[in-house]
């Protein structure tokens, strides 16, 4: 249970809300060009080639995390099927596909002050011109790593390793206190 590790209740403040997002199926995909094309086919979604960009189709998303690395998000129930589809589509193509559904989980941070709260512990520039909707990247928050994906102008999807989640949650809450959290 998620609650074995971290509180899951949402935190509200004036202009910003932190919530725990539902469970996702997650696959870490690594591979070279040929494999990428095949994986896109199997996943039903073209893996973005542009740095730090995410693509969405239906219940699935592919986040570029590195030049040969994508985080694939899907419904938990779809994971096995995607693994199976990839196994046949990628046969003979060197690649790595690892189930990391449970390695991390997702927080949602939204509201007009969401970027301000993120800026409490993250040195990236969240201006929409430099961090547009659809941008995703691994980065850091305080003393922990996380991945941030801007899904709407005032909404961020945050991926964080399981054991770091209480820290990230606490860190964000600390920066939401002045707004009433």
């Amino acid at each position, binding site marked *: 249970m998620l609650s074995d590790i971290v509180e899951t209740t949402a935190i509200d403040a004036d202009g910003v809300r932190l919530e725990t997002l539902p*469970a996702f199926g997650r696959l870490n995909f690594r591979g070279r060009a040929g494999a990428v094309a095949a994986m896109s086919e199997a996943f039903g979604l073209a893996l973005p080639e542009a740095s730090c960009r995410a693509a969405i189709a239906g219940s699935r998303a592919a986040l570029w995390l590195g030049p040969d690395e994508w985080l694939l998000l899907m419904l938990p129930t779809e994971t096995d099927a995607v693994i199976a589809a990839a196994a046949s589509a990628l046969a003979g193509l060197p690649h790595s596909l690892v189930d990391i559904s*449970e390695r991390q989980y997702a927080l949602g941070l939204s509201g007009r002050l969401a970027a301000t709260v993120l*800026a409490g512990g993250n040195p990236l520039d969240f201006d929409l011109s430099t961090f547009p909707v659809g941008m995703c990247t691994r980065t850091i928050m305080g003393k922990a790593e996380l991945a941030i994906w801007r899904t709407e102008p005032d909404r961020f999807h945050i991926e964080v390793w399981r054991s770091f989640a209480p820290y990230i949650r606490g860190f964000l809450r600390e920066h939401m*206190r002045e707004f009433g959290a």
Partner: protein
Amino acid sequence: MPDSLAPNLSVAAVNEPFRTRSGGRIDRAKPLSFSFDGQTYSGVAGDTLASALLAHGVHLMGRSFKYHRPRGVMTAGSDEPNALVTVSRDAGRTAPNLRATQVELYEGLSAISQNRFPSLQFDVGGINDHFAALLPAGFYYKTFMWPRSFWDRVYEPVIRASAGLGKVPTAPDPDRYLQRNAHCEVLVIGAGPAGLTAALAAAESGLRVILCDEQSELGGSLLADTTSMIAGKPARVWLTETLAELATFSNVTLLPRTTGFGYYPHNHVGLVERVTDHLASPDSAQPRERMWQVRAKEVVLATGAFERPLTFPENDRPGIMLADAATTFVNRYGVKPGKRAVIAAANDSGYRAALALAEAGVEIAMIADLRRNPSGSGYDAARRAGLSIETGKTIAGTSGKMRVDGASIASVGEDGKVWNTQDIGCDLLLMAGGWTPTLHLYSQSLSKLKWDDAIQAYVPGAVAASQALRAAGAASGAYGLDAALSTGFKAGAEAAVAAGGDGVTTRVFVTISAEADASTFLGAMPHNRDANRVRAFVDFQNDSTAKDLKLAVREGFRSVEHAKRYTTTGMATDQGKTSNMPMLGVMAQAQGKTIPEIGFTTFRPPFTPTTFGNFAGAARGDLFDPIRRTAIHHWAEGQGAVFEDVGQWKRARYFPRQGEDMHAAVARECKAVRSALGIFDASTLGKIEVVGPDAAEFMNRMYINPWTKLGVGRCRYGVMLREDGFVYDDGVVGRIAEDRFHVTTTTGGAASVLNMMEDYLQTEWPGLNVWLTSATEQWAVIALQGPKAREVLAPFVEGIDLSPAAFPHMAIAEGRICGVKTRLFRVSFTGELGFEINVPPSAARRVWEALYAEGRKHSITPYGTETMHVLRAEKGFIIVGQETDGTATPDDVGLTWAIGKAKKDFVGKRSLARPGMTDPKRKQLVGLLSVDNRTVLEEGAQIVADPKQPKPMTVLGHVTSSYMSAALGHPIALALVEAGRSRMGETLQVLVPGKGSVAVKLVSPVFYDAEGASLDAV
């Protein structure tokens, strides 16, 4: 603050004798009460502590560092060296060393003076002043050496007690501090006229602009300017309108009470915003202070200039202050700093102060100008006003104890000769020594300063590589309101263009204002007194004088850095804001050189002292460092587990029952595992999934072991070296598929092992088709160990045949347990039949509890890391970081067997062939048994042949692990001993400091079940 021009006459504070009847940016309708040294005073909203005390005629606010001389407020801002106070809300909310000139008054503020005993008026430390002749610069280097033991026992404690300023708070600070990262195209530091127009220009480009200023209000010099007109309006009206205009820009962030304190590489600038210190009842949801870390494309420094004090004898008495400070007190705070003033002027600022004071009703006894032929708009106005002006005058001394009561004015000839001393009574003596552009941040950026002879000041020079900044207004050496407005706007516009903005409109600011004046005097002012006796202070807080600096030069400290360190000039809490230039002046005089020949000292962050809490920000308590907990943590907590920190992880160390200490608990846990069943949370072990057709080849290169022939479904204990040949990490590796390995690492090594693997893969072997994915948190790991392990586990497992033949020791299989996926390892770090059950963390607790419930039949016992350590030591298994310490080779710890002998290369192999690594005298892993069969050795204890030898002893080795073995009924230990494997059976001595030594016998490190019979317990 009231901004209207209407005189604010309603409630003149009747009990504030030095308060003007009108004017200033204070609100006389809002009285405040506060206390200083226990006495209650009144003030008004808009006051600083300094202005409110001055309103009562209180100048004496502090004592100096060395001589404990009485000192009054000298400035009106962040350059204040004297008026340092401790402000306290409660025991934890107590801040020493605050400048009274920067402390904003609030209802109930409580401040005390510092560095005095028993009181500010009567300070016994003042005795130092009488012995000043014995205490020149650096006196302490020349004495206090005899007898030798007296330095730290006698002299130093006395010196330490008399030094220091305020006291440390007696309770932890409960307030919060936060940081915020910010990005902008143009950061403007300083919101005086230059900063305001810079921000306006940049704002019009549409780029993001941050404008900050250390003061409570934006406006800088305009806040005290009652005479200038800008664009046909009084300066304060223009200020109000300009701030309103700036506020209309959504791309502009205005930050008052925010100091730019540090300029770091790549245009990274630190600001600190004081959020609540000025409030009577701060909201605890607000941070007390906030550190802004700004990454700016371009920075405009509009930081103004500091006025220079003059260096004349006894220039430090309370009531002696900078001319511009007096102007500020009168014009901004509505406070007269005295009744009768003498003004020592080397700059027009003295005249402007005299005019402002005179208008407020202060008697101007004399303006004594050092210059023979002064000029300037202030001078002209003062003459028109009929003020008493004398030129060619120096100050030969002052009188008064707790307050200046007179000045000796003397004539000075062109040849420097001084005569005709005249004593004039006064309770206020102003110093107008000219100006120093404030370039601390400029210098911190590593940009160069250059000497400008025309204004006798350092001004901005070449900008440092990969920094982008410019100065404007007085900070750039462009003095006067006209220049401030125009250079500010130009700098803001240029910064915007450099930051990628469009060209901006030009604006012209027509002013009626005082002429700029760069006149100054640097160095000790001439006088006709005994130069060996009088003291003209240069660094007021640290009590260094012109005489001290001359002594330093005489003793060879010619470099300005040497003189600074020898005399401590410029090292006080104002960091030389008032003393640096006077120091250079005196040193230049003493060496007959020019100031640029003397050089200058480096400016270092912070610009003004910056609260530690800001740097820590949110990193306190639980947020100091992430606390990583496993999925089983709360269960273990419920069982009363005692945890230990292993890196960021919390691990259960042991599970004491009622009345048990650690030893008792561990003995019980050990017995349970050996006799029946134990359950252990191994989730923190690092896991890396190595996947790809070249996975085995990659493993061959990274680990000392051979991997090619490891069958799918089998595991192997792997050892990894650094390239220098020393053991780096270890762990069990399972082959899930031909192209897929499940690698485990130590808990602490997980991240660094992955980094090292990536390093080789990406940079040395990029052609290998293999990828690495951390799976540490994908799997929780439940270790089930003991003879009953299979029996308890079996009912829950689907799809894996657990029979010994089908699933032998060192096997791995994928299947399901309790309905969820598992990677099941049959491995043992205890020597017993054992399984490590990898399950998704979300299901881990459920699986754990199911196994635990089933295991109750066999008295299943949860055990912690301590028991794990004992059990593995009984088997002679090493722990990386305990048996190895970064200096052990595989052979040292008995792992030569693991090396793939046929492999031509692996990381670290070549290093193992170096002579130092093959030396037969290297320390080797052995077991130790206490000859008395009962002494548990201390870990880390040293092993010698002869405990009676003199020190330093020849040490043969040390104990790496030591435990009481419950299974064996006697203590066991592992040790690294010089050539240990050739010493089997020998007896050596383990030193027990203070108690002699314990005889130990060297034995095999495998103490328990050397044949491995227990692994296959049925």
